């Protein structure tokens, strides 16, 4: 036909070669961003500028890349490039996530659950005995509560700092900071104990012997919580359960089979657990031969001022959390009542009611473990799923996610409370021939406290659920504001009700305090979710 130029064989060959280069470029980098990028990639594939005129009919690679770029773009638009589609997570995967993390949460509660089981079946735990007199129980309770409160902040910070360094593969700094924080906690425990001792000498709140025994329990339990937090942060949950059980068995063997004084038996059992826990922590964080020689340029551990600055919100939260957990007992047991001898006096029916309620709380915590891990796993896939101009939809997705988890927690929490109630009642029926079991159910205070404490723990779980989201995205200030308000309400309501109604109504402070915690954190959470794109971005 007139005027029509058909490409020659050489030109066709060259076009095929150019297309082959385009395929190689797509194989290496996918959709190219510019011809200059294509030039760089072509060079790295081994093509040379000198070969371009003969092989491709182009002056050099830069000229060649203009054509290659166009071809790549055409192929990509025709769908020939690989698409990076986000994996859709099916139902089975979601179910697996639930099983995996829920059972992980159960495992977290295993140590405490085992102590409850020990006391139920043997009458002994590592720091308690079913046949304690109220005086003995008061001594131990005081020591136990103080140990939780004083070390609460440190255990929170240890978990945070050590987990962070281990997650980036820096065992050396993780080890250094773990032991440094342990030492700070240890020193603080001693200092606080000493202060109490001096105050008691001056004001004579408790008899000297009483306080000394309480301080021994306090001190040994403080070491236990601190060393346990080291092991938890290295994710060795089973070791904690094992070591606590060994200590408990020592107590049983010494007291039941060797007739040693119960407090001496506890002291030896606790010391055994402390030593084993500390040695095991040292073993976990041991350095291999090559690692010992490494000397990093930058500071191994942040300065004290910086450590305090970055961790202060988490430290405070840890402290306030344990205060919230135990404040009702401090208030109720210090209220005037019959049979009370000192400023602070253990009340068996109250404690039984709270411990009964605690069983359902343990199950709720497992639910929280699942929720926070599910949230973490979904963060990036969800962000990838939504285009940048659909941020409102992206944030709305999270609101929906949260409401589902919130509802699940409430339903599960209520179900746990009911289940725990029914199971314990049934066990009471079955074992009513045992004196201690009859005594468990003898006081209406136990039931009153159980009802209020159960619902309080549910509110607390809701607050913790919200707080986990805040902590996951490095925004502790929301949870901190909420728990401060909760503590204030707990204190005021607890004091008023325990003094004006009856001593056991200190638990009402806990109920309303945890309700405030739940409501405040939920309100913050709903606002938080509206800007969750920002919250995730700024989580550094």
């Amino acid at each position: 036909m007139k005027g029509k130029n058909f490409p020659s064989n050489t030109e066709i060959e060259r076009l095929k070669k150019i297309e082959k280069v385009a395929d190689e470029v797509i194989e290496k980098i996918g959709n190219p961003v510019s011809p200059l990028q294509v030039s760089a990639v072509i060079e790295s594939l081994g093509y040379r500028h000198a070969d371009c005129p003969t092989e491709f009919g182009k002056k050099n690679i830069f000229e060649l890349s203009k054509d290659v770029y166009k071809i790549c773009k055409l192929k990509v638009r025709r769908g020939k490039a690989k698409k990076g589609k986000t994996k859709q997570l099916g139902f089975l995967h979601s179910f697996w996530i639930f099983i995996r993390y829920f059972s992980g949460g159960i495992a977290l509660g295993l140590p405490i659950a085992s102590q409850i089981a020990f006391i139920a079946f043997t009458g002994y735990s590592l720091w308690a005995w079913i046949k304690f007199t109220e005086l003995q129980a008061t001594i131990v309770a005081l020591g136990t509560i103080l140990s939780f409160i004083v070390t609460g902040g440190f255990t929170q910070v240890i978990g945070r700092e050590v987990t962070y360094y281990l997650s980036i593969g820096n065992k050396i700094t993780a080890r250094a900071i773990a032991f440094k924080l342990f030492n700070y906690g240890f020193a603080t425990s001693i200092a606080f104990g000493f202060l109490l001792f001096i105050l008691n000498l001056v004001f004579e709140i408790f008899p000297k012997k009483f306080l000394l025994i309480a301080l021994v329990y306090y001190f040994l339990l403080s070491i236990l919580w601190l060393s346990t937090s080291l092991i938890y942060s290295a994710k060795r949950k089973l070791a904690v359960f094992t070591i606590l059980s060994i200590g408990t068995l020592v107590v049983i063997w010494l007291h039941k089979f060797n007739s040693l004084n119960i407090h001496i038996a506890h002291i030896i059992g606790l010391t055994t657990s402390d030593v084993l826990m500390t040695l095991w922590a040292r073993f976990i964080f041991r350095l291999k031969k090559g690692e010992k020689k490494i000397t990093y340029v930058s500071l191994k551990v942040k300065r004290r001022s910086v450590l305090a600055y970055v961790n202060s919100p988490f430290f405070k939260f840890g402290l306030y959390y344990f205060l919230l957990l135990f404040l009702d007992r401090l208030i109720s047991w210090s209220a005037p009542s019959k049979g009370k001898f000192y400023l602070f006096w253990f009340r068996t029916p109250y404690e039984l009611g709270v411990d009964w309620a605690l069983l359902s709380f343990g199950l709720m915590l497992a639910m929280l473990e699942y929720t926070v891990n599910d949230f973490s796993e979904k963060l990036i896939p969800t962000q990838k799923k939504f285009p940048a101009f659909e941020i409102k939809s992206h944030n709305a997705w999270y609101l929906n996610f949260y409401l589902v988890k919130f509802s699940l927690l409430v339903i599960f929490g209520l179900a746990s409370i009911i289940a725990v109630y029914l199971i314990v009642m049934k066990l009471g029926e079955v074992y009513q021939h045992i004196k201690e079991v009859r005594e468990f159910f003898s006081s209406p205070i136990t039931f009153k406290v159980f009802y209020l404490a159960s619902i309080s723990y549910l509110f607390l779980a809701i607050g913790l659920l919200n707080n986990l989201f805040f902590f996951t995205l490095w925004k502790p200030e929301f949870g901190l504001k909420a728990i401060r308000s909760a503590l204030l309400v707990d204190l005021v309501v607890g004091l008023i009700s325990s003094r004006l109604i009856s001593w056991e109504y200190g638990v009402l402070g806990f109920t309303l305090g945890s309700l405030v915690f739940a409501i405040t954190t939920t309100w913050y959470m709903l606002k938080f979710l509206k800007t969750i794109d920002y919250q995730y971005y700024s989580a550094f």
Partner: protein
Amino acid sequence: MGKRPAVLFETEGTYPFVGGGVSTWADILVNNLPEFDFYIYAITGLPYVEFKYKLPKNVKLVRQIPLWGSEEPFEDIFFEVPFSSIYMRKTKVNERAVLRKFIPIFIEFLSSLMDPFSNPEDTAGYIWLMHRYFSEYDYKETFRSFTLWQEFKRFVILKYIEDNQFLHEDEMPSVYDLTLAMRWLYHYLMPLYVDVPEVDLSHATAAGFCGIPSVVAKMRDGTPLIVTDHGVFARERYIGIGSEKSLSFFAKKFLINLSILVSKMLYKLADKVLPVCRFNTVWERIFGVEEEKIKVIYNGVDPEVFKPKPKPQKNQGIPTVVAAARIMPLKDIETMIKSCAIVREEIPNVKFIVYGSLDVDPLYTRKCQLLIKQLKLEDNFILAGHHPNPSEIYNEGDISVLSSISEGFPYTVIESMACARPVVATDVGGVREALEGFGIIVRPRDPKALAEGIIKLLTDHELRETLGRRAREEVLAKYRINSTIEEYKKSYFEAIQKLKVDEREELSVKY
């Protein structure tokens, strides 16, 4: 006698914390220029690094700038500064301050980033203004500002869509892309936070993020700036970022644009650009470097340290190929291993010994070990790890090999040449400039071609001897370390003198 001239020496992922060719070059430079005081600003990935080199007395300061892994950047950069003064900077940051003082500059910077034709001098201005802001306000708290995030989102989405008509589905940014992009800005612009000393000269060892303090020094004091290109930073970013399968189109484009922006800015402000080979000059010109600024200074070796010696007894009678290369993808050890399998068919008792760290990329090392096992090369291919005396590596073999897919002007080639051991190497970077006529050059990623070159040299004794001898002569003529040092010294003094002349001229015009 006057004070010694001070040099701000900027490195990125190299000296003095990581080994390799660039670090070797830097170590040679600082040790052999005792007439200068060096202030080293070293960008690293993570904060936890060790010194790999003993520092001479003229290194007055090493400031490490970790881009990642710091919970509080100031703690790893300014650990000598009292926390109270850092705390003051933190308390000053609020949404209003960020909106009024930072965002206007930041948006202009973003605009430059997203415009391939932006003026690099304007970018330098924004860098300077941002640095000034960060001398008063905390870096991390500023980047965590809600207002900043909102403005970033709004601007980037609008500008991206406006500038890119007919976007394909895969080219649309996701929410995650925005998060990534803004976090990259936070990490890569970390050198903005660093106080820059008053120096006589700054020397960036890559046209990359490490050069940001140089820009500050230039804008503040007119400090002369020298850039050395070992590889071309921008080119390597095109390839490296492009190869990241996990990144979306938008994310790659954003990060590449950021890298190119910084490169162009440094090239524009540089008084001298000193690549280590002519190959790099092609790309430098494309990125706008004027011809008169460019001067190639080849790497050099000490021919008294790297000199020919007989093969050790243990390798006598065994055709031996040595390589000095860290086990990492850029060195393409897999192609070397495959070529060994081909060589073994002709020369059954051939031995390949690769000296180089096995810890740089443990996954890749494992991949290579599996390939050796798969090809049953356990007796023929040895990954020998780090050698304490590099000068002895090449004399252990009959020839040496380099299979890299990307290089600047590799020391391993000229060191081997100095030891009169001919090299079979891939045609990347400046290899051809060193080796043409003195070794065998092959295409990258071609085990067959590499094997053919190796077989040729191992079987042709005369050729091997001739090439080896000529290679050493070439090194003595062109690649002596003393010549290299002299060239740098001359460039340093010229740059410093030029500033003084300019200052004098300014003064004379004034008065």
